């Protein structure tokens, strides 16, 4: 409870600071285009990393071992990949058109209101779904780590995030994300080191697993290689299509900031991912030795933290909340921009003022928290609209669409629609899909084919 009270106080201070500085739409939605590589890189990593890294990742290691690592193995590449594939063209378009949102940027590249309406709808739907999942996760993890009622944890985390995001927009959000990113990275390294020390060091942990659970080791653990490769590709290329990743490029003050950005992104991400590898490996070894008992794999991180002591439980709780709040702040801001700016302008109307964006931010937060806390079934359904959905809908237009001058608006709109629909259809049938057929990748592949075919046909 003390941690939650401190959190709310800090958020109130930040909200007051941000409200005084967010003077216009550029401040509110794009942090005034004033960010440097360090601030944007650390904040970008914080927004990118959700609570899954701290809880789901180690849990997945306990379930499938080294196979889970294929989700994060692309981390050394993704910082540079994002800048090469999408960062450079996005920053150049922002410098030319002063775009404040991704739908606005796409409309600027391709032209036509349909593109902006569809992109805004995809962003708004995906953001609300992701927010509901974050609220649900805050409830579950608040109970596990902070030992408070789930609804209390979810409401407090979302209230704090909404306070500074609604009042200060991304001027406040960028600073908050950067602080949260630094906290997450530092705590992740500390917790991973402590967990490995409790297991007798990395060599002892691996030796334990080699004797007790050798099927979890090797290159792929208990995962079929095609599935591992599909994960690698989905979480490698997918970084070029996540709106909350792309949004950070809008914050940069100049193209020159890109030069250092991959180093900051990669460093912050690698530090944070230490918790996945360290707690996953050490916790699974401790389970094999009987020091921890697990009811389900997701309990690995909480049980390992409990074994380390109350200080570890507290640090993990703060890190998990920081991860969720930073991700939620980006989604709230983008959803508000989609309805108060993108949809309005696409329909030929004047964008609503910042005050309306503040109200929209609060409404999105209330709706997502209500869904996340009250309806488990709705959360399961909304969980389908996540990483894979954005990859399927946006990857073809953000990569091929920005690089190929002959890509047309009609081709891009069709690609987004086909990719999104294909992803949702395949997600619904996921249990029947062969290993390696990831809905997000398949949707992106179909979208790419449609983009090329439609653009060529029209010409």
């Amino acid at each position, binding site marked *: 409870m003390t941690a939650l009270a401190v959190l709310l106080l800090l958020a109130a201070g930040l909200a007051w600071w941000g409200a005084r500085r967010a003077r216009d739409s550029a401040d509110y939605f794009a942090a005034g285009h004033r960010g440097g590589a360090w601030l944007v890189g650390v904040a970008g990593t914080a927004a990118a990393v959700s609570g899954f890294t701290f809880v789901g990742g180690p849990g997945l290691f306990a379930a499938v071992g*080294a196979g889970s*690592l294929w989700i994060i*193995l*692309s*981390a*050394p*590449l993704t*910082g*540079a*990949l994002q*800048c*090469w*594939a999408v960062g*450079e*063209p996005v920053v150049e378009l922002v410098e030319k058109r002063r775009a404040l949102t991704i739908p606005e940027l796409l409309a600027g590249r391709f032209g036509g209101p349909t593109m902006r309406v569809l992109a805004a709808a995809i962003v708004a739907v995906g953001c609300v779904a992701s927010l509901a999942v974050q609220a649900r996760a805050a409830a579950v993890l608040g109970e596990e780590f902070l030992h408070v009622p789930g609804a209390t944890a979810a409401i407090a985390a979302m209230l704090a995030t909404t306070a500074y995001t609604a009042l200060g927009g991304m001027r406040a959000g960028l600073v908050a994300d950067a602080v949260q990113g630094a906290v997450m990275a530092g705590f992740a390294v500390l917790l991973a080191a402590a967990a490995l020390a409790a297991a007798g060091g990395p060599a002892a942990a*691996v030796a334990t*697993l*080699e004797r007790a659970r*050798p099927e979890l*080791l*090797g*290159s*792929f653990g208990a995962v079929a*290689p*095609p599935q591992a*490769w*599909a994960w*690698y*590709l989905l979480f*490698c*290329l997918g970084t070029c299509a996540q709106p909350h990743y792309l949004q950070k490029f809008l914050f940069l003050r*100049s193209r020159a900031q890109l*030069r250092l950005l*991959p*180093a900051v992104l*990669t*460093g912050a991400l690698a530090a944070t991912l230490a918790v996945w*590898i360290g707690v996953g490996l050490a916790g699974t070894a401790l389970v094999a030795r009987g020091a921890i008992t697990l009811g389900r794999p997701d309990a690995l991180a909480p049980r390992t933290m409990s074994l380390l002591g109350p200080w570890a439980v507290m640090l993990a709780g703060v890190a998990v909340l920081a991860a969720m709040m930073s991700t939620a702040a980006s989604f709230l801001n983008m959803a508000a921009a989609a309805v108060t700016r993108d949809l309005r302008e696409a329909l030929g109307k004047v964008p609503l003022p910042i005050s309306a964006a503040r109200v929209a931010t609060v409404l999105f937060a209330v709706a997502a928290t209500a869904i996340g806390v009250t309806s488990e079934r709705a959360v399961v359904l909304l969980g389908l609209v996540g990483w894979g959905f954005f990859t399927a809908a946006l990857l*073809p237009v953000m*990569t*091929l669409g920005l*690089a*190929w*001058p*002959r*890509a047309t608006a009609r081709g891009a709109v069709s690609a987004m629609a086909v990719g999104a629909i294909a992803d949702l259809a395949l997600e619904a049938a996921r249990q029947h*899909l*062969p*290993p*390696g*057929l990831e809905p997000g*990748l*398949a949707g*992106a*592949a179909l979208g*790419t*084919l449609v983009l*090329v075919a439609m*653009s*060529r046909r029209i010409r």
Partner: protein
Amino acid sequence: MEADQPMRPFLVPAIATGLALALLAAPILPALFPVVVAAASVAACALALARRPSRPLLLVILGLGLWLVTGIAGAWVLRGRPLSGLAWVLAVLYLLPLPVIPWLYWWTFEERDE
């Protein structure tokens, strides 16, 4: 392609189409998967070549391709060995490139006259 010439306009959609078809076929023909993973990852990085071609960038992209092919092939060869398989994946695909790839981006980044 000559390193300092812009990428031919038909190459970008042609490569994207080929990769999309291969990606759809890979779950049915798993032998395709390692090739698609390496080719698609490198092709995404190579989009920068279409905008600002240079010999250093071309060499870096080719080097990334070589590293990914080696890393994935090694993981496949060592898949049945608990210790060396895990060590290969962590060392070659994760730890070794962590400081190198951001530096390669730094090195090939071109400042632009404002």
